[in-house]
Every structure is written in C-alpha cells, then in structure tokens.
C-alpha cells in the first residue's frame, strides 16, 4: 500500500509541471545557497583561523605581565629552557617556541661616505627549528636561507627601504636589555615575505641564540608561543600552563583573548550559518505549503470521490504528505548536487573576492595579520545534512494542514464542487 501511495504521489507531482518545477527551484536554490555560502565561509574562516592561530598568535601565548602594553626589553620570561620543558611535558602540546623582540636601528652594512640612513627595525630572535615547521613564522622559507649564526632574514619592506639585498651586510644598532649599546654586523641570508606585518615591515629574523648574546639576555624571552593539537582547546591548555610554577608572574593568553575581535567574528559565523539555514526553511516551507495547498484545493472533487469509494482518510493524508516530501527531497537533492559541485570546483580554483569587487589587493591586513582575499571554500557535509533535514521537516509540517483539510472533506459536498 505504501508503495502505491508513493507512486500516486509521484504521479500527482507531474500533473502541474510548472508549479512543481517552481517549487523545486525554490527549494533547490535555498539548499544551494546554504551549502555554497556556508562552505565558502568555512573556507574563509578556516583560513583566518590558520593565520591567526598559526605563526603569529599560536594557540596560547605567554608573556611577562606588562609586556603586551609596554613592549619594554626588560619585561621578560626568565629560565625559558626550563619553562619550555615544563610546557612540552603537558598533554596535547605539540610545539613550543620562544621569541625575543628587540627594537633596533638597521642600516646597510656597506660603508658609505655619508652616515648611514638607519631605519627603525625589530630584531626577532626565534627558535629556528620550531618556526620552520608548519605553524611557524618561517614556514616555507628555503632551508639554506633560514637564520643561523650571523645570517639573518630581512623583511621585504625593510629590505627595500634600506636598499639591501640577499648576501649583503646589515648593521644592527640597538640596546641590550640594560640599555647599553649593542651593535653587530650580520649577513642577509634571505628576504622574507610574511603574513605577519611586523616581519615584513620591520623584521630582522635572527636565531634566538645570537639574539640573546647581542642583547645580553641569556635564557630569557619576551614571548612563548604554544601550539596544542586543537585550537578549540586553547582555553584548557592555557589553564594548564598557568599552573606551572615557573610562570607565576606571567600572562597566559589563549588566542581568543589575544585577538578578541577576530575570535568574535569567528564565533559569529555559526549565527550566520543559522541565517542561511533559516532561509532554506522559509523557501522550502513557502514552496511546499503553496504547492500542497493548491493541489489539495484543485483536487477537492477527486478526494471526495476517493473518500466516497471508501479510501481511508489516513491514506489521503499520507498521499499529500508523501507528495510534499518527494518534492522537498528532489529539490534539496538538486540543490545539494549543484552546491557541492560549485564548492568542489571553487575550492580548487579559489574565489578572489577582492577581484570581484574590482580591487587588486590580495590580502586584508588585520591586527598585524595579512589575511588573504582569495577564499578556498571548504566542503562540510554537515551543511548538506542540515539542509536535507530542514527541508524534510518543513515539507511534512507545511503539508500537514492541506492534507488534513483533504482528509476531512465531506464526500458528497466535495464531489458536488
């Protein structure tokens, strides 16, 4: 019997092809929008998250309490090697790396007649091995260009301003941790383009060992970056790190607190997801309710006949509802297929929305991070499933009332109409 009901329902959908196609189109378009937009946003936010929790901020940051405000040389975390070992011993910690940030003046190392034009710069002393890994500041740098000893990497913008290139000498003039003069000559091992403003604009990236020698700060660092296994667990990780005895005086921040605006934007995404889900709901509800209603009214005579012949009212209800569910499922399937195809294609080609808006910029700078304008949508099956569920539920709900109307008809009156 069920099979017959489904068959009849399917045939009924073909009776008014234009109306069915319109309803299908509305549902399919809703689902397509849901899948594509949400997957595009997933891609965009994923990228943002990778930039944010990747090299610059990490999952958890540790500083001396006042460092973020004052950035003074002497606000350091001491006994760093011991602290690092303690953090690495925590469960779920994947990488720990320490950094030194020292403001200096930089000048070309070539001797000139006139005094050098010095540019303000920042020596960033880093743990080269850690920073060269996937989440690090130096990811992607040629292995032979990585900072080592007196060889340093120079940010692209700074290099241009100083008029120096790879292989040349660089003079660094700064102050050690006590303010006494600290000067030295370095070889430019490479020029670095980075998503981090501070690196590109002012960075002199140096191995942390020579940086500590130059600035007289053995076993001290300004910043420790910790990567756990999952950025979503950053808060838990931060709490564990806070308990460590060597960090009683330190400020331990999960990335969400380092860039609260970005974190809020990313949290807002789940609300935006809901908005699109609601659009699908409404499109499906309107399309299905309309179709079911119209076809029920059109078939008053027919339903009357069926009832008069002894068809159970339950079966009429089932027929109308199945009709709607089929309509909804076909629509949502169409939308899912087209949407998924679009996502898969664009995830390979990328969507440059700056170009769409007529701009030739390729990244947006935010909080010292360069976030690419090119989005690679990321397929997430949950958006398809959510859409299918939404449509199924709506089609049942939206067709119940017309179905009940049909089932409650008085056969004689209905046949007369």
């Amino acid at each position, binding site marked *: 019997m069920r099979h017959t009901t489904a068959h009849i329902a399917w045939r009924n959908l073909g009776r008014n092809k234009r109306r069915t196609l319109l309803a299908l189109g509305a549902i399919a378009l809703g689902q397509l929008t849901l899948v594509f937009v949400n997957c595009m946003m997933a891609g965009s936010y994923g990228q943002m998250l990778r930039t944010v929790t990747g090299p610059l901020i990490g999952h958890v940051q540790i500083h001396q309490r006042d460092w973020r405000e004052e950035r*003074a040389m002497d606000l350091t975390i001491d006994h760093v090697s011991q602290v690092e070992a303690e953090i690495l011993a925590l469960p779920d910690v994947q990488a720990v790396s320490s950094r030194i940030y020292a403001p200096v003046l930089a000048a070309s190392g070539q001797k000139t007649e006139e005094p050098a034009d*010095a540019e303000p710069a920042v020596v960033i002393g880093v743990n080269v091995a850690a920073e060269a890994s996937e989440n690090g500041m130096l990811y992607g740098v040629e292995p032979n260009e990585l900072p080592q000893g007196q060889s340093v990497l120079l940010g692209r913008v700074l290099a241009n301003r100083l008029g120096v290139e790879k292989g040349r000498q660089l*003079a660094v003039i700064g102050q050690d941790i006590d303010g*006494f003069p600290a000067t030295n000559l370095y070889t430019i091992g490479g020029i670095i383009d980075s998503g981090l403003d501070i690196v590109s604009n002012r960075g002199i990236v140096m191995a942390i060992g020579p940086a500590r020698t130059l600035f007289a700060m053995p076993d001290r660092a300004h910043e420790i970056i910790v990567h756990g296994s999952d950025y979503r667990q950053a808060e838990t990780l931060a709490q564990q790190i806070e308990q460590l005895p060597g960090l009683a005086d330190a400020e331990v921040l999960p990335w969400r607190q380092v860039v609260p605006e970005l974190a809020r934007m990313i949290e807002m995404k789940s609300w935006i997801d809901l908005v699109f889900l609601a659009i699908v709901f409404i499109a499906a509800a309107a399309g299905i309710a309309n179709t079911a209603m119209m076809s029920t009214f059109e078939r008053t005579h027919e339903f009357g006949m069926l009832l008069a012949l002894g068809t159970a009212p339950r079966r009429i209800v089932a027929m109308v509802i199945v009709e709607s569910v089929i309509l909804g499922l076909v629509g949502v399937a169409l939308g899912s297929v087209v949407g998924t195809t679009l996502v898969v294609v664009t995830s390979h080609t990328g969507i440059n929305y700056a170009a769409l808006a007529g701009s030739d910029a390729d990244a947006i700078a935010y909080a010292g991070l360069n976030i690419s304008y090119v989005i690679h949508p990321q397929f997430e099956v949950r958006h398809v499933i959510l859409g299918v569920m939404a449509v199924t539920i709506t089609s049942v709900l939206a067709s119940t009332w017309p179905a009940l109307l049909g089932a409650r008809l008085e056969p004689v009156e209905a046949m007369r109409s």
Partner: protein
Amino acid sequence: MESIVRYPMVAALAAAMALSLLCGIPALGQDEGGTPSARAGETPATPFIKDGKVDVNAVVDHFENLYRADSSISTAQLTVTKPNRTKTMTLKSWTHGEEKALIVIQSPPREEGIATLMVEDNLWNYFPRIDRTIRIPPSMMQSSWMGTDFTNDDLVRETSFKEDYTYELVERTADPNGWLVRFIAKPATVGVWERFDLIVTPDARLPIEAKYFDRRDRHARTLYWDQVKVFDGRRIPSHMTLIPQDEDKEGHKTEMDYLDIDFNADVPERMFSLSELEQKH
C-alpha cells in the same frame, strides 16, 4: 607592534646641566676655591646675597653663564647602576662653544671607541664594532644615551634659565643647607619639564640638588651635585648623581665623576666633524 621602545623619563634641563658638567664647563664660583663652606643658618657674604637674601636674578644670571663656555677637554668616569648590573665607563670629551661636543668612550672593552658627536641639535653615534656612524633619528631622542639615565635629548637640548623659565626664590632650606629656587616653565617653552626645584649652596655659587617635575607635575628625576674639587683653578662639584624617580626605574642611577678637566684647552673646530668622529677611537 607600535612603540616598542619604552621612552625613559625625559629631561630637558638636567640636560643642559648634564652636558655642561659632562663637558666640564661649569664655572660656578670663579674665586679659585677660596670660599669657606658656610654653616647652617649662616648667610655668607657673596655677590649673590643681598640684604641676607639670595639675589635670585644675579644667581640665575650667574647660572646662565655657566653654560657659556669656550672649549674644554675632560675625562670622566660614568657609573650606571641597574637593578642587577653596574657598568663603569670612562669618557673623554672635547667641547667647543655651546653647541659642539665630542664624547669618546675609552673603557670598558665592549664599549671602547663608541663615540658621540653633537653639533647643534644633531647627534651622531659611531660604533667601531660595525664601523658605522648613525645619526640619531628624532624618534630616538628620548631613548637612553649609552644605557645611562640621560636621554639623547638631554645631550642636545639647549635650555635657557632666563628665557624658558620664570623663577623665584622660595625659601632658605635646612636639609640640605641652602636656598631653594623654583623654576617654572613659561607657557611657550617646549620641553618635558613643567618645573624644577633647585637647591643651591648657602653662598649661591654651587648647585646641590634639583628635582624635576614633568608636565603632569610628577617628580620624575633628581640630580645631586657633591664632592667639590678644584679643576684647572675652578671649584666645582666633581660628582653628579642622577636618580630617575620613575616607578619602573627603581634601582637605576647614573653617576658621573670628573677625573680631569682642562678649561680653555685648545680644541680646534675641525674636531667636530663626522670624519674626525670615526677616527677618534
């Protein structure tokens, strides 16, 4: 990553004093060290005391002229104390007029040969280790000079007691024994100090201490002068101490001890050039 440099508490007037002392200019008391030190409460007879009170105009004139000097060559020991570290440097300085000075660090080895040239408002540092001369950019003027509690700005800023400040005699002080003269910056004066309280010796010839207040009227630094010695026939304090009052500068101190000052030495003007700067090490 803006303003990575934490600017130390700035200094304008201490500047002039620091520089003058650094360069051995002060000619406080030209009377060849003959003045007996006054006992507390006693008012000695000097050209600066009128009717038992300091003639503040005469004193300020006198102080103003301290900084009008010819040339000099001096050697000083600079001791910089930080909470966990003390560094002593020996400096040799040459001056010519008010606006030209050359300072070369002679020891310790790590700083040996580092030299600073001042010509008017410009400041250059020469670093032998990298064999480069760097002009100090305006953005670095409030940074420490060679790790001391003086700023680069202190070295080059010219301040005139008479033109930049209004002043008044406040009172006779007991501890330390002397006269308190208060200087208040005129509204048009550009600088970091709102006012400073200078205490001079009872004979008003030598400074004892000065408290500097910044534009928010916070006590920011104190300078002390003591250990009066005779250099080249002039009686001047040979030891000066600068203590920053900043909370985060606790345990910081810069002291200067004059070892030798040769007033009116023959210092040719050509010494104060960039090429000389690089050869002086």
